[in-house]
């Protein structure tokens, strides 16, 4: 009896040790394709309370999963890049245009774009996400149908555009005309939603690097989105992840593309200002 107890205890300690092998404080460094050096930790931005250092979600993953992101031939999310690049040159809509008709080469015109979104749009008078900007181009410039906000086409296009900023530091503006949306996002981040009364901060600020059962909590950074999720087997957009997270507090969640999630995305993106754009990343 006692021996069983001891064995179980030893086993449990073993499991805990395994589960915490890849902690945020480990010094693994992410280099993609042997050439793109990613910043996976950085000093926290000054307007972010509660954190001294920010860490990419990559730093919280087991070494096997970390490895998948180091080589595009291994990365299960890389399929979307080809899809997105193909769609970039595909003519659609009443104006007979493709993305390339106006923006020409994706590698040149989209370099650095992901890093600064969500971003204030002066003519629209609102903060817009990359997905909203893509749909605006489709409906206003191409005369094409808007894509579903978090559908496969949109996610692939976002991934292809994001790829052109891979390795660049996230640098979203939080002041000026974006300040109101940013403040709304900050308030949401600390709101305890749902029957479980959990805020984003409860898990991702106060308890990152701790475990909820087998889940190793990260800081919830979104610099790697769209991210390939092993759990769902596909690329996942930021708003889709937000929707699932808030649902898991046993709350009435928000919709992808809603004003609430645009504000939350701006705020959460700003918490990662200084980390590298990683899309497509690989996450559990």
């Amino acid at each position: 009896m006692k021996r069983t107890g001891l064995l179980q205890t030893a086993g449990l300690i073993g499991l805990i040790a395994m589960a915490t092998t890849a902690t945020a404080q480990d010094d693994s460094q992410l280099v993609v394709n042997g050439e793109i050096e990613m910043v996976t930790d950085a000093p926290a931005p000054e307007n972010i309370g509660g954190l001294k250092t920010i860490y990419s979600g990559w730093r919280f993953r087991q070494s096997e999963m970390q490895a998948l992101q180091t080589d595009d031939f291994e990365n299960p999310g890389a399929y979307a890049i080809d899809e997105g690049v193909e769609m970039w040159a595909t003519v659609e809509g009443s104006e007979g245009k493709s993305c390339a008709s106006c923006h020409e080469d994706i590698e040149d015109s989209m370099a650095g774009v992901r890093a600064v979104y969500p971003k204030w749009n002066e003519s629209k008078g609102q903060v817009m996400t990359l997905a909203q900007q893509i749909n605006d181009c489709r409906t206003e410039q191409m005369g094409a149908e808007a894509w579903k906000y978090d559908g496969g086409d949109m996610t692939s296009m976002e991934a292809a555009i994001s790829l052109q900023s891979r390795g660049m530091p996230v640098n979203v503006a939080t002041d000026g005309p974006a300040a109101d949306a940013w403040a709304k996002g900050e308030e949401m981040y600390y709101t305890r939603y749902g029957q479980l009364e959990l805020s984003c901060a409860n898990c991702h600020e106060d308890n990152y690097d701790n475990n909820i059962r087998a889940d190793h909590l990260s800081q919830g950074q979104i610099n790697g989105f769209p991210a390939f999720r092993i759990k769902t087997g596909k690329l996942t957009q930021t708003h889709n992840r937000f929707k699932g997270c808030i649902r898991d507090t046993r709350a009435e969640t928000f919709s992808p593309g809603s004003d609430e999630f645009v504000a939350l995305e701006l705020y959460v993106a700003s918490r990662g200002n200084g980390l590298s754009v990683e899309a497509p990343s690989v996450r559990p």
Partner: protein
Amino acid sequence: MKRTLILAAALIGSGAVVSAQTVSPDDVAYDEYGSIEVSLSGAAGDPAVGAEIMSDRGQGNCVACHQVSALTAAFQGNIGPSLDGAGDRWDEAQLRGIVADAKMTFPDSMMPSFYKVSGFIRPGNAYTGKAADDTFTSLLTAQQIEDVVAYLATLKE
């Protein structure tokens, strides 16, 4: 007659009938420290059932956040404090208060309130992401709270 009695007994046993002594979540009397003196169900708790509730992902799932050496559940979390020795540190009324609504004892606690039905922001219908409807209940029943409390009281070092 006899059959009816047996059926009634079975229903009570399964918790399908709410006894007259059950205190509903909105009527729970917490003292100034967050303790609850009397049983919420009017009955004693069953520690063996409590251990199951604490381990089961579909029930209390206490081990999601707390480590309990006496439970064999895999992947115990480390968000909250270990519950080893909880029965030494807290008396029954204190344990009942913490399990029912920990925020009455620790105002800033991250711990969900397991016997509460009001005061939520955007409460949902379980894990569907949809709004709560008239099927909304507390996370645990009165008797489940008592079972968990009975188990916690056995955790002595």
